[in-house]
Each structure stands twice: as structure tokens, then as C-alpha cells.
């Protein structure tokens, strides 16, 4: 009999929620000028799940992402990232969460033009205190997973679709397990948009949660679940009801 034979079987690990919105409301301004962006949203995105958020302009899609990344605070309700309420974090903890746990992909690429592709992806890792050599290895691996090479080139040397892939690599390096993508295909043609969404849709298989804001059904259809917002509320959700995940 070996030691392991005497050990109790491992407890099943419950699925981890990457992010939870609990009755979250957000109002900008006050009095007659008050604008309600979110009016009580409750929504959970699990690790390994891709959720698309759709809805008309002004429905609160982007506000939801800002709250998810701790860029703004809700007026009421709770946002929980990786099991920790964002409102309970100190500014320093919040900055660490944004650097370490959450990756962002925007319509505008937000790459630093004076840094190479490799350096752009290394930047948040080095800011987080990871030694340069390790940061370089992790960045190279992330860029390679995006099908990119010749990484010593500058962003302007890459096409729009390739630049967005650099942004995705940057959003997924290190320990990041939550990727927030706000209209990431907005500046791309259909073929490049498809490639970018395909790369995002592959992330859940590696354990990451992806929240994608888009107005394009074509791209939303890659998600496991599509959530529709209207007037700051969830009005419906659709799933590919085949009973299984990828």
C-alpha cells in the first residue's frame, strides 16, 4: 500500500466565478441631470466561459466593463472579481488587480508606439515586478500563441488585425484570468475581426473568462452566452442550447 492509497479522495473543486455583478446600479450625475447607465444588473461569468454583452447605444454595456475592471465604482450593488469585492479593495489592491488579474482589449489598440511588440506585452509584467528575463519569456510565449513573429517590430509595422492580436497577448500574459474586450473588432474588417474573435474564443479553454462587448451578432455568436441589456437592465440571455460547452 502506498501513501496515496490512504489519502481521502480529493474534494471536487467547485467552478470558480471570474466575476459577479450583484444588483449593480450606476448613475452618472445627480438631480435632473442624473443618467442611469445600469439599473440593477445581476450577472455571473464563470472561469472558462465567454459571455458577450449586446444592446443598443447607451444601454450600459461599456459601463459594465468599467465596473468589472475596477475603473469605476457602482452607485449601489457589488462587483466581485476572483472572489473579492472590488469595493473592499484599497486603491493599491485595486491597481494590483487591474495589473495582475484583468486584461483589457479595446477597439482602439492602446499599444505604446515607441515600444516593440515584445516590449508592449512585457510592459505590464515588468510593472508588476516580474524580472525582465521571465517577462520576456512570458511575452514571447503569449505572442507566439497569437501566431505572431518578428516581435522586435513596432506596432505601426503590423496590420490592424495583428496589432489587435498583440493587444490580446498583452491582455492574457501572466496570471490574468479575466479578459474584458470592448468592441475589439470595431476597427477591423470582417476577416480580421473573425480571427481576433476566434483567438478570444479560444481563451476559455485555457481557463480564462472573457467578457466581450459587441454590437455585431456575427462576433457575439462565438460566445457561450449572450446577454442583452436595455435601459441598464438584463432583458434576456441566449445560449447555444446543445447542452455542452466547447
Amino acid at each position: 500500500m502506498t501513501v496515496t492509497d490512504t489519502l481521502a479522495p480529493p474534494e471536487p473543486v467547485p467552478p470558480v466565478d471570474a466575476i459577479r455583478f450583484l444588483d449593480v446600479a450606476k448613475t452618472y450625475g445627480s438631480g435632473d441631470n442624473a443618467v442611469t447607465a445600469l439599473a440593477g444588473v445581476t450577472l455571473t461569468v464563470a472561469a472558462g466561459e465567454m459571455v458577450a454583452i449586446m444592446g443598443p447605444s447607451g444601454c450600459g454595456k461599456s459601463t459594465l466593463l468599467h465596473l468589472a475592471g475596477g475603473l469605476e465604482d457602482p452607485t449601489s450593488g457589488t462587483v466581485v472579481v476572483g472572489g473579492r469585492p472590488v469595493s473592499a479593495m484599497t486603491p493599491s489592491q485595486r491597481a494590483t488587480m487591474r495589473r495582475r488579474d484583468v486584461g483589457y482589449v479595446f477597439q482602439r489598440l492602446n499599444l505604446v508606439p515607441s515600444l516593440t511588440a515584445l516590449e508592449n506585452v512585457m510592459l505590464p509584467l515588468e510593472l508588476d515586478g516580474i524580472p525582465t528575463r521571465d517577462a520576456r519569456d512570458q511575452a514571447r510565449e503569449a505572442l507566439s500563441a497569437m501566431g505572431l513573429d518578428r516581435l522586435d517590430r513596432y506596432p505601426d509595422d503590423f496590420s490592424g488585425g495583428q496589432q489587435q492580436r498583440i493587444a490580446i497577448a498583452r491582455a492574457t500574459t501572466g496570471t490574468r484570468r479575466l479578459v474584458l474586450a470592448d468592441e475589439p473588432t470595431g476597427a477591423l474588417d470582417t476577416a480580421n475581426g473573425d480571427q481576433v474573435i476566434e483567438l478570444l474564443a479560444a481563451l476559455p479553454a485555457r481557463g480564462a473568462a472573457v467578457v466581450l462587448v459587441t454590437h455585431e451578432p456575427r462576433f457575439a455568436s462565438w460566445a457561450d452566452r449572450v446577454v442583452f441589456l436595455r435601459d441598464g437592465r438584463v432583458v434576456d440571455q441566449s445560449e447555444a442550447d446543445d447542452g455542452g460547452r466547447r
Partner: protein
Amino acid sequence: MAVREGLLALLDAGPRVGHQLKTGFEAATGGVWPLNVGQVYTTLDRLERDGLVATAEADGQRTYSITDAGTAALGAWWEAVGGDDPPPRDELMLKVLMALDRGPDHALAVVTAQRTALLALLQRRRRDQRGRATDPAVGGEALAAVLVDDALVLRAEADLRWLDQCEARVLQARR
């Protein structure tokens, strides 16, 4: 398109017997339009009656071929373009219009329900597409099936865009 145009298009490539026309029609339409043999022969009889198809007996089999009048009719069909005046009676469009007649809230509820169902359908198709490798060199019947799939996906996307537009316009009108 009706079955008659499909049969004329197949006969334009050369004379055929009835069962060749049935299988040829089904293959060319990507499997979306199964025919029974009776339908094929009834249509061929009408085409012959109208002078668009001629028949010949050989080895106990009746062979069909296209006539000059049939070629002209087929040419006119290739060139004809579907019009939108009056607009086609699209089921989804009419459903939303009828819902709007009952008020904006009902219209928004119908738009939401239709959109959710359509997007779920699109998600399933996307998942199916991802499950099979796409061969860019695909041809013949397989190409027809792929083109059918593309058409369904793109039409669902177009319907979803239209529903988004409906929602935006109804919300705007309600404010």
C-alpha cells in the same frame, strides 16, 4: 425558383433521364430541397406540354432534353432579379409590425424574444462550423452544402441587425 427552373438548368448541361434529374437537383441544391419522383415527372410532363422540353425513347428509357424555347426561358430566369416593390411578405418583419400595432412595449418584447432565439440559432451554427475543419478547396456537392450554411448564417445575422434597428427606433419613438 420553382422545380421547373431547376430541371431546365440541369437539362441545359445535356439530356438526362428522370432519376438523374431527381438526384442532380437534390445535389445541386445542397440537400435543402428533397424531391419525390412523382414531382419530377409531373413537372417534366408540364415542361414538355409547354414546349420547353423534348423527349426521346431509347433502350426502354425516356430521355429528356431542353428545347430552344426551354433555353430561352432558362436564360430569362437567370437574368431575372427579385424585386422589392411591393416588399416581400417576410414572416419576421410582419410579426414585428403586428406587435408594434399593439404598442411599443409589446413590440420590444417580441423583438427581444425573436432576437434571443435567432442568436441561439446562430451560436449553434457557429459551434457546428467550429467543429468541422473547413477545406478551402471544397467543391461539388460539399461546396453547395457550405454555401447553404453560409446563406443561413448571413441571413440570421441580417435579421439580427434588423431587430437591433427595430429596437433602437422603437426606443427612440417611445422617448
